[in-house]
């Protein structure tokens, strides 16, 4: 089967990516601007023997996909702000119990019901820290429709490989935009499947190298008769209140991700070799940022775009290299400066970080990012710039 070219919507591409990964179970609750994903799953999954369930709420949705994943199925849900808030408790459950799942969050304006049909990028921190307790997490951020396909597919691979929940963070514009997408030949896709134990004899469901090892996962209903609990547990899965067991578990779960950032993190960019002013942007903001960077280059300003495709963990090493020559880093994002905090943490001591926040439900216009770049260039890219949150070109 050859590659195919299709005109696709972002949400549609997410669904196609999930199906390409081997999605066989979807549970969800309708919410704008993510609903197309549920609708498409309801239509497509039965064709391949999979299952779609419309649950009574988003708590039930994430709970159901965790249950399905435990039987060995690849499982996903999709939602937006209010629903994502409801999922937080069980997101932590999946993280602690090491159950692979994928959650697509098509971001809209919040807090609360906010502006349901307007894009936002204000769930950056909620995706990172929304559930209670210390934990690491993987969050991928597609920057166009093709990447909705690629990164949803990748989200499953990472979820299966590291036994973690993976969040695909898009937004209303990426989700609803239509672009021409070249889909790969299905034969070229080799989805990753979780490593399974060979026999029930002596199976310890949570035995793994303390330095970030991933335990083997048996499916329910296959004779392993193992126990899963959201209580801290030892290698056998038995609940434990011992401090050394707790310490070892939490550190291993963290190390699973933090010791593998080179495998997990991806970014792309333009002009990063020599830029003096770098723009760090993801998702739909990165589209405007790219055209602003190109225009600035034409005007002789050494601008560059750093676009993380993995925002948690953040590709820190790569950004640090850019920061060696970029005196200023401009961070346009549709919130009041959430990703900018991470950029400051990584590069704040060597570069000036300029927060360019936008919270009116509109996309960045390229001129706004361009004006911020040029404003910094006028200041020699070093310093006295006036760009504060929300103050781009008017």
């Amino acid at each position, binding site marked *: *089967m050859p590659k*195919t070219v299709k005109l696709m919507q972002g949400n*549609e591409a997410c*669904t*196609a990516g999930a*199906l*390409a990964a*081997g999605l*066989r*179970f979807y*549970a969800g609750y309708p919410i704008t601007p993510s609903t197309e994903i549920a609708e*498409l799953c309801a*239509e*497509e999954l*039965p*064709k*391949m*023997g999979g*299952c779609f*369930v419309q*649950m*009574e*709420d988003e*708590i*039930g*949705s994430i*709970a*159901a*996909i*965790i*249950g*399905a*994943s*435990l*039987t*060995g*199925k690849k*499982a996903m849900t999709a939602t937006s702000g209010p629903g994502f808030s409801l999922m937080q*408790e*069980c997101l932590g*459950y999946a993280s602690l119990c090491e159950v692979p799942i994928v959650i697509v969050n098509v971001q809209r304006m919040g807090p609360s019901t906010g502006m349901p049909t307007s894009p936002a990028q204000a769930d950056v921190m909620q995706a990172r820290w929304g559930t209670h307790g210390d934990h690491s997490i993987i969050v991928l951020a597609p920057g166009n429709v093709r990447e909705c396909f690629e990164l949803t597919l990748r989200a499953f691979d990472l979820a299966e490989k590291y036994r973690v929940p993976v969040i695909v963070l898009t937004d209303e514009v990426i989700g609803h935009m239509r672009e021409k997408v070249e*889909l790969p030949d*299905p*034969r070229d*896709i080799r*989805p990753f499947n979780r490593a399974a134990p060979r026999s029930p004899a002596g199976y310890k469901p949570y035995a793994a190298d303390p330095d970030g090892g991933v335990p083997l996962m048996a499916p*329910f*209903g*296959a*004779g*392993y*008769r*193992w*126990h*899963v*609990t*959201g*209580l801290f547990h030892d290698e056998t899965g*038995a*609940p434990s209140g011992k401090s050394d067991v707790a310490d070892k578990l939490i550190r291993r779960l963290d190390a699973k991700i933090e010791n593998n950032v080179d495998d997990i993190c991806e970014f792309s960019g333009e002009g990063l070799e020599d830029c003096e002013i770098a723009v760090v942007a993801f998702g739909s903001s990165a589209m405007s940022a790219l055209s602003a960077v190109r225009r600035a280059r034409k005007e002789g300003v050494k601008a560059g775009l750093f676009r993380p495709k993995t925002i948690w963990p953040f590709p820190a090493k790569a950004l640090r290299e850019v920061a060696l020559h970029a005196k200023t880093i401009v961070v346009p994002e549709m919130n009041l400066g959430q990703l900018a905090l991470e950029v400051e943490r990584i590069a704040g001591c060597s570069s000036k970080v300029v927060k360019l926040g936008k919270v009116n439900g509109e996309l960045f216009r390229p001129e706004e990012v361009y004006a911020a770049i040029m404003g910094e260039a006028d200041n020699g890219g070093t310093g006295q710039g006036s760009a504060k949150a929300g103050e781009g070109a008017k």
Partner: protein
Amino acid sequence: MSEFLSYFRQDRLPHIWCPGCGHGTVTGALVRAIDRLGLDKNKVCVVSGIGCSSRAVGYLDFDTLHTAHGRALAFATGIKMARPDLKVIVMTGDGDCTAIGGNHFIHAARRNIGITTIVMNNETYGMTSGQFSPMTPKGMLGTTAPYGNVERSFDLCELAKAAGATYVGRSTSYHVPLLIDLIEKALQNDGFSVVEAVTQCPTYLGRKNKLGDAVQLLNWIKDQAVNVKAAAVMPKEKLEGKFLIGELHNGPAPEYSAEYGELIARVQRSFENVKGGLWECASNSD
């Protein structure tokens, strides 16, 4: 006795329950019913929420899932729909099932999904030390009802029936043979089944309400229970302050995962060639 021990993870014992707690009796009734039916241990999956009652699953030698407070039925829905061939059982407390998990309960009943739900109703939140629950009778004391509970309580079995459960029964930790019978029948029902087991929490409900020790509390429960067959010929006044035990509803209806399975078969017949769908994934279908 020893033949039932094989249903337990003996290395996980002793259990966490207080002396005199009724949860162990209900758990024992469940394994006896499973034993009578000769179910394949590898095809049984037991799911629970959070509470003293929900800790039961950790001791049972099946695939077991101890989930989040109130959410057992939602997790179980995912398991049943992904593996309709499994016998899925939910063990839950009155707070877990009817307060925080109330919405999942009525929707699981409405769908008539093939899950057997055992509600261990001690009329209080045991694990968090004796606050009133939606099942605490009006007027009783709880740590958050120091002047008496002013709220009305649910009739869980009526609720289950009204929401669409196809098998409903109630027994107590005193009426154990009946409890085993009801669980056995519930497990055989192809649909959503609910067995409410009224049970004793001597540590909190008993002590707070000065109902005495575990045995006195069991007697207190026993005295309120009236078999549904006996009740049918009793005058209404005599049923004041009592609850019914026995089989309360048995009305088979199509089961949800089976109906969805038929949907899949129908869709696959009409889309014989999956190509042309959103993603031509014949290469990695299972």
